[in-house]
């Protein structure tokens, strides 16, 4: 049913002596699309990296599909099979073709047979509308195309939760649309998504729940309709008036 896939409770994180996440709690239900927005420096990128254990947290709890991330005995591989991540800088492996990028993790990490992995990879590239670019190297692809390969690469692990860290921020405006269409398609197919994004239009149309962070805490959250038309907190109002 609609039970929570991701639950974060009172998460704290410091770098050096500076606390960047000061007690964040949220929950994302299965099939839900959650968007985190906020000014830069509010801890959004750090927050999303805590979810798949790229960044360890000091205090609090993060549970993904029952797996506790803040566990010293965490099985990282198990966690990362459930969570896929797409980055702002795409981070494709430049020495491999698009197809090989998508195939690498299932081959080496999951150790699935090659034929099956290749067939899946081709299907995924077709799904993100890059059929015909299988043998292209990342250097030969546009930013939007690279980002779609990155999405396909994350999907190849068949995750339950997809994390998107400002994935359109580094793209030319013309290519932003093609990436957003891809994410929207995923959402409509029922994938649970958590996006850190600046794309307010996308958040309003596709998002189910919006979180606004500032200074390491969640200031306000709600459904897109309530959030954008009736912001309650003054900080939210100030931020929205700046960007809308």
């Amino acid at each position, binding site marked *: 049913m609609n039970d929570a896939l991701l639950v974060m409770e009172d998460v704290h994180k410091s770098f050096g002596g500076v606390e960047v996440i000061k007690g964040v709690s949220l929950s994302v239900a299965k099939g839900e699309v959650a968007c985190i927005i906020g000014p830069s420096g509010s801890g959004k990128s750090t927050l999303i990296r805590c979810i798949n254990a790229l960044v360890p947290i000091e205090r609090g709890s993060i549970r993904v599909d029952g797996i506790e991330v803040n566990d010293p005995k965490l099985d990282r591989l198990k966690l*990362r099979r459930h969570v896929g991540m797409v980055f702002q800088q795409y981070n*494709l*492996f430049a*020495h491999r073709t698009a197809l090989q990028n998508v195939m690498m993790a299932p081959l080496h990490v999951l150790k699935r047979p090659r034929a099956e992995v290749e067939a899946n990879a081709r299907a995924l590239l077709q799904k993100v509308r890059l059929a015909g670019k299988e043998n292209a190297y990342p*250097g030969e692809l546009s930013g939007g195309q690279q980002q779609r390969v990155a999405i396909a690469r994350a999907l190849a692990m068949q995750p339950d939760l997809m994390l998107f860290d400002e994935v359109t921020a580094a793209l030319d405006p013309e290519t932003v649309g093609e990436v957003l269409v891809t994410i929207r398609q995923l959402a409509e197919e029922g994938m649970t998504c958590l996006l850190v994004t600046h794309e307010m239009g996308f958040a309003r149309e596709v998002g189910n729940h919006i979180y606004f962070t500032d200074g390491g805490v969640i200031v306000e959250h709600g459904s897109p309709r309530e959030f954008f038309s009736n912001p309650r907190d003054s900080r939210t109002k100030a931020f929205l008036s700046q960007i809308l």
Partner: protein
Amino acid sequence: MSRLMPVILHNRAPAPAITLRAWHGLALGGLVLLSGAAADAATGAAANTGVFMTLARWTPLLLEGFALNILISCLAMAIGTALGIALGLGLISLFAPLRHASWAVMQFFRNAPWLVLLFFMILLLPYHLHIGPLAFALPDWLKAVIGLALPVMANVAEILRGGVQAMPAGQWEAGASLGFTRAQQLWLIILPQAFRQMLPPWMNLYAILTTSTTLASIVGVNDVVTRAGQVLAAEGGRTDLLAPIYGYVLLMFFIYTYPVAWGTRRLEQRVRVRR
């Protein structure tokens, strides 16, 4: 304005670097010719004891010595690179004691003068090596190879560490988020990409190593420099032969090393452009 014009015109494009190979070879050849001609003029030598005839006569002997220099450089590079990769992996290890020990070893061999290391090997390594039932002689040139392989090892380790360090953090993040172990990230993602960056400094190291093989002559190895000394002695210590013969040896090294340096520069440009 007229004062500025040549300045502005000049600065439209940066001054092109001269890369004509012929010029430099000509220059070095010219150096040999000049010193030979000066020597000949000073002593008024007859044709068949002239500098050029002498050099031509002794060339096979000198080239044999030069071949030994090349052999030493290739062996030392091979051994040093293999050891250096291992040491480099130790430098980037997450296991602190290994990392610190590797760092100490690297610093020692990078900061010790190569000539002192050579003396160390020549004087302190035994003449015969006994490994189990096998006993084989350790000739001087082989000791020189070992002595030169050690600083190469330290430099290769540093090149590897630098190359890995220069990889953007995003590559590690992407690999981690896909579930790769650190070893997998290193072998499948980081090292293959860093390799291209590491090639130019590695080739540069080989050029430096090749010119450093002449140090072996100081510790008694029969390389081209030692042979040049023998030629001088055989010719009765003629002062007019001094400059030409060393110029000749310089020419040999130049002809061998310059293409390596040129290839390295080309590779550097290609690596830069692709990024």
